[in-house]
């Protein structure tokens, strides 16, 4: 058994499966484009080229978070609905290896949002592509996306335990956009939001991308983003182990 190969192939195939869903692709592309357009026009008041680019990147990051939040949060439920949860869970791999490719794929599908909002901004809204550190951006964007996918494993394993997970998914979108500084710098927010923002990998991911656009060190924020995602990954794997055992006791793997 080669877990790395399994994760790579599993993630690739899950990206393929999710990318062929017209609904998911529409949500991944269309919503961030609307948000990017709004943000760019709002930021145009400042006539600051990096701010315009930040608006495009920030809207893309919002798309990534939406994809992870909705995709990973509902990962287990989605597998249950399409009847693949039982055949996935009956394989001899550890539970985390079965679900992680799905949550990583939700992050990678979110990457479409970043690409789309950047192209939209540059080609249609006339945002100058003036990256302070373009190479860092190329590295940081996929790393952030994968880190958020790993964070998704914790969402997947905890949401499945909550009876009304769907009800809390929607309200979690906007606060995390704000708290993580995807559009507005966290320094502009009240002080009490700081500790909450600090424990979210989205905050450090957004900060790393912001640094790549406007200048400044990228790697410290990127390292914190990856570090927090790894902690979430371990917690998610432990939680998933118990979810698997509990589901066998409570008979909740199948729909019937």
């Amino acid at each position, binding site marked *: 058994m080669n877990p790395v190969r399994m994760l790579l*192939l599993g993630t690739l195939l899950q990206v393929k*499966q999710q990318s062929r869903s017209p609904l998911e692709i529409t949500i991944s592309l269309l919503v961030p484009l609307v948000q990017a357009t709004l943000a760019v026009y709002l930021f145009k008041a400042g006539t600051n080229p990096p701010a315009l680019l930040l608006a495009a990147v920030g809207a893309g990051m919002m798309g990534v978070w939406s994809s992870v939040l909705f995709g990973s949060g509902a990962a287990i439920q989605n597998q249950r609905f399409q009847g693949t949860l039982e055949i996935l869970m*009956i394989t001899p*791999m550890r539970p985390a290896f079965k679900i992680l490719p799905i949550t990583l794929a939700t992050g990678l599908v979110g990457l479409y949002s970043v690409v789309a909002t950047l192209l939209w901004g540059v080609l249609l809204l006339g945002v100058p592509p003036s990256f302070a550190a373009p190479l860092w951006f190329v590295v940081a964007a996929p790393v952030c996306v994968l880190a958020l996918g790993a964070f998704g494993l914790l969402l997947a394993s905890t949401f499945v335990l909550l009876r009304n997970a769907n009800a809390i998914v929607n309200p979690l979108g906007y606060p995390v956009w704000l708290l993580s500084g995807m559009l507005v710098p966290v320094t502009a927010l009240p002080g009490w939001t700081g500790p909450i923002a600090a424990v979210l990998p989205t905050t450090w991911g957004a900060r790393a991308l912001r640094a790549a656009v406007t200048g400044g060190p990228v790697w410290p924020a990127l390292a914190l983003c990856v570090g927090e995602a790894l902690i979430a990954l371990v917690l998610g794997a432990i939680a998933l182990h118990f979810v698997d*055992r509990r589901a066998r006791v409570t008979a909740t793997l199948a729909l019937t």
Partner: protein
Amino acid sequence: MAGELAIEAVGLRRTYRTRTGWLRPRRGSVDAVRGVDFAVARGELFGLLGPNGAGKTTTIKMLNTLLTPTGGTARVMGLDVVRDTRAVRRRIGYVFGGDRGLYERLSALDNLRYFAELYGVPAREQRARIGALLDAVDLTGREHERVEGYSRGMRQRLHIARGLLHEPDVLFLDEPSIGVDPVAARELRAMIAELSASGTTVLLTTHYMAEAEELCDRIAVIAAGRLAALGTADELKHAAAGRRVLSVEAYGVTDAHLAHLDALSGVRDATVEVSGQQQTLRIQTDAHVDVQPAVLRELAGVRLGRVETRAPTLEDAYVAIVNSTRAEAAA
């Protein structure tokens, strides 16, 4: 003997907890399987029959580690299904009937590659094994198409290929032929027979008696969560020994007719099967009693088709077993 057993269930039980209502939740429990004992030898093709809700799928899911039993023990290839879960999972395959359970937007090849990885099939063996399985299930040439475009028969064959990727010692087939057309069902039966001939232990649940009779070395009948009968098809037919079956095609038989027929002297059991507009009355009688005139009198005014008397089949024996178990449970 234990070393020669592929599956061993001892006093297997499963109770589901139920909960209804929010403010004042009412909790209850449903006994789906109430202490089932049976053993399946290595290489045997074992059938599990029973009406809907009898506990067949629950039994299979306890044996294949998807459900934890609430009582009793189960071993697969000598491994305990609760303690040695991952080891059991490496040695079993699970295939269920119906449309679901595949990644629809992926091709058959991608589905098989994914599950080959999940089952830890060595990379160097994957290509050959997947190719051989695609050949075996007659999907070669269609493997690059998305599953969402497949017919039900093709999906079912792909399910079987998926279940065999890691060459399991034991294959659980839960109603694999449900909804499959007759030609595809025949091909499926041939495939299952071949698997059994190659040494794979197969546990099959089905509603089709002909399928069970043709394929299974031994058959267990589960009714109301209990093992009601166990033996070869010929042995099970003894449950209907000393009986004859009067079969009547009819249009317009009511429950009242059925109750009257059931009450006739010499009638052991009367059931009706509906297929479109047509009803088929199946009346089991004591072999030495001719009930045909009395039955036809009761059905006066009902449009009738063919009427015939015949020896009991496995299906008749099955109906007799299930009905007597239900009657005992109700008493």
